[in-house]
């Protein structure tokens, strides 16, 4: 009975007039949806196992295939949505936690879409970024309380010792994605693009593949609860170190890379035996307080000769503002906050869709709190968790971020179609898989080129938006909430975001 309860999520519509039985779809589907039937000399499709990744549709040379969402065959019920019913069917069969991938797709409020940017008119001139210099270079790291300058022999010299910094050509970094959760080719594309565009990528918690050592000067290495791949050399092959406490998609939850994915390469990168499960505990077992965190921060600073920024990544949760304050006081050079729409390679669906708070509110409250406490300059703020466009970047900076982390956007640039089946290891786009038949589908040369194009395009758009607002440096926008107005937001939401409603002037 139970197997009959499973329904196809998608319909494969094949236009027989256009299908030339070339079998490209058959060869490209890792879920064995398409099959060539030699009796009928036709390609047949079994939609039950289709995940809606649209790979076949994209590669079909004649446009004969259309993958369409199939309307569930349930009586319409506002309370009992098809998702609820299907999930109960799945769980009553498996008895397990439902897994999913990528960020939450539930219709929670996306505050970016309720924020509008300003533009200069009459009383201040707008600036054309194509004709006039526009500065979007960003520095990540703590800033000193004050600086002392000394004049000697007619030249000026900076007396104050500036803490270590990362220098970014654009206020965008690639967020943490581990080798294991994504393929080597995907890691390489991110590393090469970051290096060529002069920004940074993050290794995630899976260690650093030796072949990627050449991108060390654009690498942020992560130290997470599993401590995978962490040794002196790992820390030396990085420009910065990030302690991962939490991830937006699964705050409070650890990770589990099944043994079958721990191939030879991954086992040596993660420094664990081949074929064993890679388990990241939910907490760091040596961090139970801000004081413990400070110990790890300074242990890492000591290990890297105080030459590299050490940051802390946390997910946006209810008490994020005091937590961030504690992190700054613990000595972090930057804080990365991951909002609850942030992506994941695998997470329990119930956690992903229900735990955490939106990044916009977390960012505004953290920035406000740190300013109130007079410690905002001590750490840079990087935010992530579904930054979907250059306007999201600009809005995040206006709300108080120094830079943003992008990951889902980067994967989409490399071909990801957000089918949310990363946890199956069967990614047809060669991204979230370790199957050699699938990983080669992502040519890192193409991946790098596309990521660079994305960064270039977003940077241009950021400059356009800055110019339109009459400012010529991203520094002038940072935390400048007068450049934002809210629409369709309650007074409480506006107060937390620290912005006026659209229509309210100075």
């Amino acid at each position, binding site marked *: 009975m139970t197997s009959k309860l499973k329904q196809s999520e998608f319909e494969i519509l094949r236009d027989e007039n256009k299908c030339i039985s070339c079998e490209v779809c058959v060869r490209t589907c890792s879920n064995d949806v398409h099959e060539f039937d030699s009796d009928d000399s036709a390609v047949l499709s079994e939609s039950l196992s289709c995940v809606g990744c649209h790979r076949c549709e994209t590669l079909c040379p004649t446009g004969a295939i259309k993958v369409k969402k199939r309307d569930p065959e349930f009586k319409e019920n506002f309370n009992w949505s098809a998702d609820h019913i299907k999930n109960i069917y799945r769980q009553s069969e498996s008895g397990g936690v439902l897994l999913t991938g990528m960020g939450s797709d539930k219709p929670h409020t996306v505050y970016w879409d309720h924020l509008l940017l300003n533009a200069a008119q009459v009383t201040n001139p707008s600036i054309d970024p194509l004709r006039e210099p526009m500065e979007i270079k960003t520095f990540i790291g703590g800033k000193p309380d004050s600086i002392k300058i000394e004049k000697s022999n007619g030249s000026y010299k900076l007396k104050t010792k500036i803490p270590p910094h990362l220098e970014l050509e654009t206020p965008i970094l690639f967020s943490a994605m581990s080798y294991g959760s994504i393929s080597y080719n995907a890691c390489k594309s991110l590393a090469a693009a970051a290096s060529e565009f002069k920004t940074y990528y993050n290794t995630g918690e899976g260690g650093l593949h030796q072949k990627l050592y050449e991108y060390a000067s654009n690498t942020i290495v992560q130290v997470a609860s599993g401590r995978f791949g962490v040794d002196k050399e790992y820390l030396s092959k990085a420009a910065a170190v990030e302690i991962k406490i939490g991830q937006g998609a699964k705050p409070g939850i650890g990770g589990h890379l099944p043994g079958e994915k721990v191939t030879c390469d991954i086992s040596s990168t993660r420094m664990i035996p081949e074929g064993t499960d890679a388990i990241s505990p939910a907490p760091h077992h040596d961090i139970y307080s801000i004081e413990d965190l400070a110990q790890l921060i300074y242990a890492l600073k000591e290990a890297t000769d105080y030459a590299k920024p050490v940051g802390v990544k946390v997910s946006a949760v209810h008490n994020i503002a005091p937590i961030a304050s504690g992190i700054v006081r613990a000595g972090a050079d930057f804080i990365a906050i991951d909002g609850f729409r942030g992506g994941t390679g695998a997470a329990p669906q119930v956690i992903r869709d229900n735990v955490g708070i939106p990044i916009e509110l977390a960012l505004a409250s953290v920035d406000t709190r740190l300013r109130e406490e007079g410690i905002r300059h001590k750490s840079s703020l990087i935010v992530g968790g579904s930054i979907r466009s250059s306007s999201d970047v600009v809005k995040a900076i206006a709300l108080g971020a120094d830079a943003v982390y992008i990951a889902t956007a980067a994967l989409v640039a490399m071909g990801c179609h957000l089918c949310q089946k990363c946890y199956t290891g069967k990614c047809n786009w060669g991204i979230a898989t370790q199957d050699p*038949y699938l990983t080669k589908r992502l*040519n890192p040369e193409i991946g790098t080129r596309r990521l660079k194009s994305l960064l270039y395009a977003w940077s241009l758009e950021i400059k356009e938006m800055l110019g339109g607002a009459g400012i010529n440096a991203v520094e002038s926008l940072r935390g400048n909430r007068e450049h934002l107005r809210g629409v369709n937001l309650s007074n409480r939401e506006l107060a937390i975001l620290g912005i006026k409603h659209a229509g309210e002037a100075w």
Partner: protein
Amino acid sequence: MKRIYINEEYCIGCRLCEIYCQVKHSKSNKILKAFKKELPDIISRVLVEEIGCNSFAIQCRHCSDAPCVEACISGAMTKNPNTGVVICDEKKCVGCWSCIMVCPYGVIKRDLSANKAASKCDLCFGEEIPVCVKNCPNEALKFN
């Protein structure tokens, strides 16, 4: 001379190169018409070799000392001294298949349709970039 280089690490075995090669060498030059009306008379001149998860697309290497030109008994197979491209004049070809016997890459095929001639890559004469290279979704073929 520009050549097609194989980047086998990124060949995904989709065989789109073969499909577009067939279209290019069809009468209609249109994918639907070629596959619906002209099969099986159109032969792909590029071949995807595949073992397990390893694959690559190979077509005539246009060898500098082309053995097929040496072996050809009718003078159909010639190497253009200026461009270096090896071409089979299908009208002159008598179908003795000597070229197939000597080709070290196995990239010459028998065309048993009306012509009965050796069928091989002509680097898409008239095209700026050969269609197999142009349509490879993963840039596993390069022309330079």
